[in-house]
């Protein structure tokens, strides 16, 4: 039976299979329930008792050991949908979400695909076709030009003309080069000649009569992206921006909305560019257009993510729009029912990604048992997670344990709320980046909103290491805990438990399984 809101839908559905796992599967399955839709989870052997299976009304087992046999097995997933009578598939993010062939297979199986058209995924998935299309559509891309340099000709004239068009500082590359060979940064016109000659020497073979590529060099750039929503009737709105500049090795760590770095004018320009980009591929559904924001305020198209993003909650908190619900509506062929001027921006939201990793040990991924897992709660605090207390964290999947999202009237208040929420987040048994996140958001540069994408990688460790622990106090507290008989159930070997072993009401007793 289709839910009431689907009335008049040309492509109605009533049962959604979620082709994913972890927090996003939990998120989508809950949204399905709220929308009056039945939800079906998928699980591999190691996910048999995972949270996303628990929250689903129904779950289908995928046989096999590898991801290719399970969460990446398009055939088995479509077969699972058929078997259980699901009439729609939501891919989440990652896994098969940006595989055009999967989108096609779902549709040709007669199921509703809760995602953009396969052609849009294809075009945007290829960097070169995306860049070409963006240039044609008038969306700003990082300026770059190819110059054919003929042997013996006066290269410098042509080069200087192109360089002036592209703008300084720029990056000079031999197209036939690679691996950094023949690649030079040029900061001003007067060093163009010497840098070109140096580059030519470095990649002599490549520069003889080859091609030189120059591209504007963006330093101190911020990562700002626009959330868009499009329906299949030509309706399209943008839901403002998210600033994801706080990254570690290109991995987003903190995301926020609005961006502290742009004003209303840039927001509107960027939003319009994002809608142009989406319309260029006849986009339908929720998507994200990523831009690099240069220090001079100019922005350039980076790529488009044709799926729901990890960081979508900050947009939901500030606009009050449930993006997964909107994905359902659009997939059902309904109109957005939302005009651009109706999109509001309320307060400030920040998301922190909680990873199972050890910041003090080179950010190595960590594994273990979440023996104690007490996420914070309270006004303006949201935790999206696929884990619960007692769960094993293994190396089989992504190390993201949870997303902690806070919402407050101002950025300052949101940072304070996030810091308190992080400090209340009890996660014991697996090393996490929680303390590191506190150190990062307490850094002066983050407070001032002036960080760029290199911030975490370039800031000296001492500035991010946090305060030294009061060791004597820790020892006194822990020795006292031992004396009081606490924490005795997590025997290291799972064997003998000493005389302090927990009483029947001791929660650790119920948790005690095979802790390695």
């Amino acid at each position, binding site marked *: 039976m289709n839910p009431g809101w689907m009335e008049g839908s040309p492509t109605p559905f009533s049962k959604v299979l979620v082709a994913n796992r972890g927090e996003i599967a939990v998120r989508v399955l809950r949204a399905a329930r709220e929308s009056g839709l039945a939800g079906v989870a998928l699980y591999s052997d190691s996910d048999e008792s995972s949270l996303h299976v628990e929250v689903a009304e129904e779950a289908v087992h995928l046989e096999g050991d590898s991801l290719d046999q399970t969460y990446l097995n398009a055939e088995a997933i479509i077969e699972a949908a058929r078997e259980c009578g699901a009439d729609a598939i939501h891919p989440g993010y990652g896994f098969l979400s940006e595989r055009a062939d999967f989108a096609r297979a779902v549709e040709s199986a007669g199921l509703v695909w809760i995602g953009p058209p396969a052609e849009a995924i294809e075009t945007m998935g290829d960097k070169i076709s995306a860049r070409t299309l963006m240039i044609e559509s008038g969306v700003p891309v990082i300026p770059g030009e190819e110059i054919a340099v003929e042997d013996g000709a006066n290269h410098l004239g042509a080069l200087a003309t192109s360089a002036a068009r592209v703008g300084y500082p720029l990056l000079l590359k031999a197209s036939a080069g690679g691996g950094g060979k023949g690649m030079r940064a040029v900061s001003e016109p007067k060093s163009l000649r010497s840098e070109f000659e140096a580059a030519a020497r470095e990649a002599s073979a490549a520069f003889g009569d080859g091609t030189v590529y120059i591209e504007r060099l963006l330093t101190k750039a911020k990562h700002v992206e626009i959330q868009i929503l499009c329906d299949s009737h030509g309706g399209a709105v943008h839901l403002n921006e998210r600033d994801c500049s706080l990254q570690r090795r290109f991995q987003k760590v903190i995301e926020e909305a609005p961006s502290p770095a742009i004003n209303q004018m840039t927001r509107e320009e960027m939003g319009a560019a994002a809608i142009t980009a989406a319309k260029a591929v006849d986009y339908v559904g929720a998507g994200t257009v990523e831009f690099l924001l240069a220090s001079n305020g100019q922005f350039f198209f980076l790529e488009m993510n044709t799926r729901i993003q990890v960081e979508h909650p900050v947009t939901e908190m500030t606009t009050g729009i449930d993006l997964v619900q909107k994905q359902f509506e659009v997939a059902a062929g309904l109109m957005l029912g939302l005009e651009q001027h109706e999109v509001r921006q309320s307060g400030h939201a920040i998301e922190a990604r909680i990873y199972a990793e050890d910041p003090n040990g*080179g950010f190595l991924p960590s*594994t273990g048992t979440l023996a104690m897992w007490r996420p914070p709660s309270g006004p303006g605090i949201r935790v999206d997670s696929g884990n619960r207390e007692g769960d094993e964290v293994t190396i089989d999947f992504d190390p993201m344990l949870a997303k902690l999202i806070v919402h407050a009237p101002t950025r300052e208040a949101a940072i304070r709320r996030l810091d308190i929420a992080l400090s*209340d987040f009890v996660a014991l*048994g697996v090393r996490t980046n929680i*303390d590191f996140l506190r150190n990062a958001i307490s850094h002066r540069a983050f407070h001032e909103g002036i960080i760029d994408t290199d911030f975490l990688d370039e800031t000296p460790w001492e500035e991010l290491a946090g305060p030294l622990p009061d060791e004597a*106090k820790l020892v006194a507290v822990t020795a006292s805990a*031992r004396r*009081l008989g606490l924490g005795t159930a*997590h025997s*290291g070997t799972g064997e003998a438990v000493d005389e302090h072993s927990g009483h029947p009401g001791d929660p650790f007793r119920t948790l005690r399984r095979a802790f390695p």
Partner: protein
Amino acid sequence: MEWSVSDDNSRYKVTLEEGEGEVRASSMTKDGSEIPPPRVVVSDAGKLGRLLVESDGNHGFAHVVRFGDEWWVHIDGRTHVLKFHEQGGSGSAASEGSLAAPMPGTILELMVKEGQRVREGQPLMVLEAMKMEHRILAPRAGEVTKVNYEQGDRVDMGSVLVEISE
């Protein structure tokens, strides 16, 4: 019975006094020298591995979980792992110079062999886990006395990868 915090080498001994469900430190040594005991009073907060900690007149909670000799403590908004040493003195000699795998994974590349001298911080091997590569560095200078695995081997967390003597 001694305690240490994380990998820090300082060893602490503490004498506790107990009364009315409360425990406090009455004396403490750090690496054998007497230090003033921290002024904390700890009592069982009744449930869920939670303690009530009174420190210089301020009250707060601590959460504690034990894995063997490892004690995980969340207090004052931060998480710490303390090590309990039953025997006291330095830990077992065998584990002193050995390097355990910090995570389960596959050895992609082995950069040292037995008998080789290494300096502190020198890369010993590359371990792959969760589709990421991680370099295992020498914790200190010394001679590699044993290499327990070969390239391509899968290792569990805590497996002794190499042993390094002074």
